[in-house]
């Protein structure tokens, strides 16, 4: 019974082609296919075997979720073209490509965003980050033209969700990789939000800060920076480590590299009393608190730490003092 993993994988991939090509073709309904591929994914060690198989099939049949496909649709026959599409996607999934990259899109709050490797795929926690910004800064809804800066925009999820919720707002979104800048631009255009967003290819760790300062101060600075501790990187799932941009994940030895850069620059970037919202590792709130205590000159005050839906301390709300640092 000792089969080498790569051999097993090859056998399974081959077996995967059989069910609907041969015997199964007459009964190739979405439901049957979902069961077949779930089994194949399970045997192939693919995580979320059921969800993966259901989403890929729903996608091939034009629905977002298998639930949305429910009822008569799920029981009706699948065309040959759709079968090929499902098979192509499933093969990718067996190579552990994230589902979001395979189908090329995913939802973030009310928006459907394009997803393309290696740009970081937004996580559900970050939906809460947007909710927190909106809840803690009610003045954003009232002010005439609030300005928001996002550091590390990736696919553009946070910036575009904020623009969607705040019809008056303007956003400057920066990212250090060109792929992310391009994807944010593409998503902004698809959602018709491109007129209120300025997207810059800028690395906050190495590029001259003057480029940002020239844009003028903002009301809110928001970021889901790379925050994974370098030593934790090797424990990540193949989906992440093989396909997602490491620089969007690796936050340095203590996961704080970009967080420190943001905090150090923020007195220059923010208007007086401006707010900072950060997502981080559950260890970060305490670390950020200590770091701020040792940097009183920044006049930053940690207002609150908010837990995510799994009750992990995840979000940090910081406020800049009253005094202007602009001279």
């Amino acid at each position, binding site marked *: 019974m000792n089969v080498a993993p790569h051999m097993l994988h090859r056998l399974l991939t081959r077996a995967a082609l059989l069910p609907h090509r041969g015997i199964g073709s007459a009964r190739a309904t979405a439901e049957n296919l979902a069961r077949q591929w779930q089994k194949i994914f399970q045997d192939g060690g693919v995580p979320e075997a059921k969800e993966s198989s259901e989403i890929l099939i729903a996608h091939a049949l034009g629905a977002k979720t298998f639930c949305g496909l*429910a009822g008569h649709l799920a029981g009706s026959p699948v065309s040959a073209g759709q079968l090929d599409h499902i098979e192509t996607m499933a093969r990718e999934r067996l190579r552990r490509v994230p589902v979001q990259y395979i189908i090329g899109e995913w939802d973030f709050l009310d928006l459907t965003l394009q997803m393309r490797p290696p740009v970081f795929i937004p996580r559900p926690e970050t939906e809460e980050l947007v909710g927190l910004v909106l809840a803690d800064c009610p003045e954003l809804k009232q002010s005439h033209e609030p300005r928001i800066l996002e550091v590390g925009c990736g696919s553009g999820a946070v910036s575009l969700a904020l623009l969607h919720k705040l019809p008056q707002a303007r956003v400057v979104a920066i990212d250090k990789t060109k792929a992310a800048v391009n994807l944010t631009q593409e998503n902004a255009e698809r959602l018709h939000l491109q007129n209120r967003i300025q997207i810059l290819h800028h690395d906050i760790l190495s590029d001259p800060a003057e480029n940002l300062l020239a844009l003028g101060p903002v009301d809110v600075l928001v970021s889901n920076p790379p925050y994974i501790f370098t030593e934790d990187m090797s424990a990540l799932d193949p989906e992440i480590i093989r396909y997602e941009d490491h620089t969007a994940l690796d936050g340095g030895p203590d996961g704080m590299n970009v967080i420190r850069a943001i905090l150090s620059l923020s007195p220059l970037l923010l208007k007086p009393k401006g707010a900072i919202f950060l997502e981080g590792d559950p260890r970060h709130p305490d670390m950020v608190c200590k770091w701020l205590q040792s940097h009183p000159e920044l006049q930053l005050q940690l207002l609150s730490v908010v837990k995510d839906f799994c009750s*992990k301390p995840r979000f940090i709300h910081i406020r800049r003092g009253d005094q202007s640092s602009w001279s």
Partner: protein
Amino acid sequence: MLLSVGRCVLCGVRTVPRRLWDKRCNVITGVGAAVLCQRTLSDTRRPPGLEELIRSDVWNDYLKRVQQWGAGAAGSEGGDQQRASSWRDGEKQGWRTRHILPVIKEIRSKEKELTELQQLLADENEDLKTLANAEVAACLEEILNLKYQIAWLLISRDEVDDCSLILEVTAGVGGQEAMLFTAEIFDMYQHYAAYKNWSFDILEYFRSDLGGVRHASASIGGADAYRHLKYEGGVHRVQRVPKTEKQGRIHTSTMTVAVLPQPSEINLTINPKDLRIETKRASGAGGQHVNTTDSAVRIVHIPTGLVAECQQERSQIKNKETAMKVLRAKLYNIKLEDETNKRQSARKIQVGTKGRSEKIRTYNFTQDRITDHRISKSMHNIEDFMLGDELLDEMIQALSDFDDYESLVEIVSN
């Protein structure tokens, strides 16, 4: 004499109808807005049971009582028109009286004219008699019309009639066959929603191995969605030879439909501490460390044990919002039923808990027959019925008519 009568008849032919027509218009414009928003179709429909009721003495007695009550209230209450649109129970009677009284007055004046006209029938002039006869008939018709108008005014709609709803289907007795039937019924309502131009968003869908459904729910919204679907709650029974049966025996299986109104504004406070929100992300470091696609959310309301789930969206927060809406609707429904249960009622059509455990309809495939047990109505052609268009609509309309009739009987005999 002849001249004067002739003039009178001329009056009768020419001026009376016109004068009356004007008055009727006044009634229509005065009450019209309320009538229009209350009934859209029914003004032209005359279900058989209703006509019988309207012509009965019980009905006339009721009108007399309203008139007396109105005369008594007019002195004490004065003009409180601003409350006219309120639907709270205590004011319902007042609303009815205020809107019905003008119509009753109209009926009374019509009746007076009728008596006058009937005197003319004794006249010797044949032409005059013919004219009078026609006029009497017209007068009677108008009285009947006005009585119908009162009926439509009395059939008050539930506060929640216009709102969206959550439809839940659950397989009952009968194993895989019950689950297959549950899937078919769920499809039927999905088609019915499309037929009615309503939205139909599936919230959860738990499959069985053979393509059936253990449990599924959907949020349905659109004009009068609840008013139509509220009669569908209860136990539906199927009698047929299941696909799974090898020896050709007929099985009887059941499934349950629950219909929960989902008003846009629910006056209900939920303490977040009473909620347990379950997601697939509960373990591990979370955040950037994990990339999952399972966005399903399950919320448990700890004090009541009620559960709401949603797996319809790819966004977890969206699923959570929907699950919260479902939970609110469920909690609201419990509250609503507590109130309804206080008002004991002998009606055959029950909406809510009392109806939920009752067998309301049988789908007998071997006889190609659907029977609704509440109104003893049978229809044929199950295949078409389960397409969820005209036939199902006809059944629902019959239920709605009967419900209207029962509620009228209840009102007039109190």
